[in-house]
């Protein structure tokens, strides 16, 4: 699968909206081996220090010309230290990891995103056929990332909770016309409550739905069994190796 564990050079790392950064790192696998929806485990190299201890999972945002890109929000110490990196610094990177969005050749797919759920979109748009992106946010400011998203030929419909841009309400309000219009699959990435609702709506119509899950991870590689998510039929699957992209029907959304 071409997964590697390397020390990679940062080619760019800059804030593109308050608290949100876009970082590119040198990655030999960026040109072909990585598939949309896959992720890497990343850590700012800090010689001799073991706090933070573990790498952090970030979706591959885009990949071309030997550079893998990530779009991330600064949340805590792991992402905080990533944000301090400058061009030429080193980052420890394991990847690409996990199950990608399926390849549904020629199919019409709608992507329902919330917040940072847009992160995997550019690579997805480059490699798969996405007809439409439905994007939810609480406020206009959360849409700042849109300006840097390179989504050639893909229309974006927006819903904000405060109505400042686009539809006033939830992003899931925008989905029914597409389900009724016979879209062939829905991809979704974002907060759990949103993905749960998307999954429920698709399930009710019998439309295939693929969700990109999140879970706390230690290894990202199937070693620790830490990233468990309950399956509909009982038992657990592991987000890092069975996912992050899974058939939404197999999840016990709870």
């Amino acid at each position, binding site marked *: 699968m071409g997964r590697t*564990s390397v020390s990679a050079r940062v080619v760019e790392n800059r804030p593109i909206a308050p608290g949100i950064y876009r970082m590119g790192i040198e990655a030999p696998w960026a040109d072909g081996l990585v598939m949309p929806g896959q992720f890497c485990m990343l*850590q700012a190299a800090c010689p001799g220090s073991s706090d933070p*201890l573990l*790498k952090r999972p970030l979706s591959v945002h885009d990949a071309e010309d030997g550079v893998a890109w990530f779009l991330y929000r600064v949340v805590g110490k792991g992402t905080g230290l990533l944000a301090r990196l400058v061009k030429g610094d080193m980052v420890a990177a394991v990847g690409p990891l996990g199950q990608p969005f399926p390849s549904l050749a020629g199919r019409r797919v709608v992507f329902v995103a919330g917040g940072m759920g847009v992160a995997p979109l550019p690579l997805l748009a480059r490699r798969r056929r996405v007809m439409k992106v439905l994007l939810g946010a609480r406020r206009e400011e959360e849409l700042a990332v849109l300006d840097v998203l390179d989504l050639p030929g893909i229309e974006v419909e927006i819903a904000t909770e405060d109505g400042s841009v686009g539809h006033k309400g939830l992003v899931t309000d925008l989905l029914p016309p597409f389900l009724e219009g016979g879209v062939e699959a829905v991809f979704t990435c974002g907060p759990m409550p949103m993905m749960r609702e998307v999954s429920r709506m698709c399930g009710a119509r019998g439309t295939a739905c693929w969700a990109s899950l999140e879970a706390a991870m*230690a290894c990202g590689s199937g070693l620790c069994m830490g990233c*468990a998510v309950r399956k509909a039929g009982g038992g*657990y699957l592991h987000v890092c190796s069975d996912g992050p992209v899974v058939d939404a029907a197999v999840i016990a959304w709870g």
Partner: protein
Amino acid sequence: MGAMSVDMSVELGGLKLSNPVLLASGTCGYGLELTPFLDLRRVGGVVVKGISLEPRDGNPPPRLAETPCGLLNSIGLENVGAERFLSSRLPQLLATGATVIVNILGSSAEEYAAIAARLRDAEGISALEVNISCPNVKAGGVAFGQDPRAAAQVVEAVRKEWGRTLIVKLSPNVTDVTEIARAVEAAGADAVSLINTLLGMAIDVEQRRPVLANTFGGLSGPAIRPVAVRMVWQTVRAVKIPVIGIGGIASARDALEFLLAGASAVQVGTATLADPGAAARIVEGIEEYMARHSITSVSGLAIGQVPGRRAGARFVWRLQ
């Protein structure tokens, strides 16, 4: 490596290993997950995830919490069970050329013995590592590893079924680890490995609840290394069987702390989660150190000659 050639092989209760660096149970899956990053023949052996007689689902999530230089986990002993391990995992793992040690767990001495019996007929398993940190259902849930008699009973039961190398993995959550070590030595263990995780917990102060669904978890990683080195040092001086050092090893320097304390081998756990190639780096670093210090064999690393075996816990005199 320098011009000098060093002998990295070690012997652990009848088992010959090419080098003293093993992958710790629960942190290398069933070994196979690591092959993109690590040639499993470069480590002394692979201790696979704890196997029970029947498959186990494990604990509900969240199962992980990072703490300063440490990791809390409450996987809950999720595993595919003995049958599926033997039929689907073991053959593939053996095909990599790895030396395979199987970590086993149960909730009664009989259950431990039954797994040992089941694994006995499988070819290619070099040793069993008996995880006695599991709750003893018959004794109200206190771990076998916290009671010398219960620990000895498990070891005796397994010993009857298992003729190859038998390693017992000790819990650090005890007043005197040497007491348990001596008990399992007397019961027939070929070696002891320590430490398993320290019992800990973390609270999410914004959500106002424990981070882990299971409330408690096992603490691993560099944070626990000083406790592990101390327990290994004490145990080496309390038993005659080999001791395998575990706890927070992330570099050759860290592994050497244990080997200098008298451990015959080490296991790398959490470090593999953070960096899947860690163990190979550690093997190289130990070789380089030995060459630099003109030490020709791993058994020559231990500090001094370990003197007359004394009970370790009594060493402690005046702290702080």
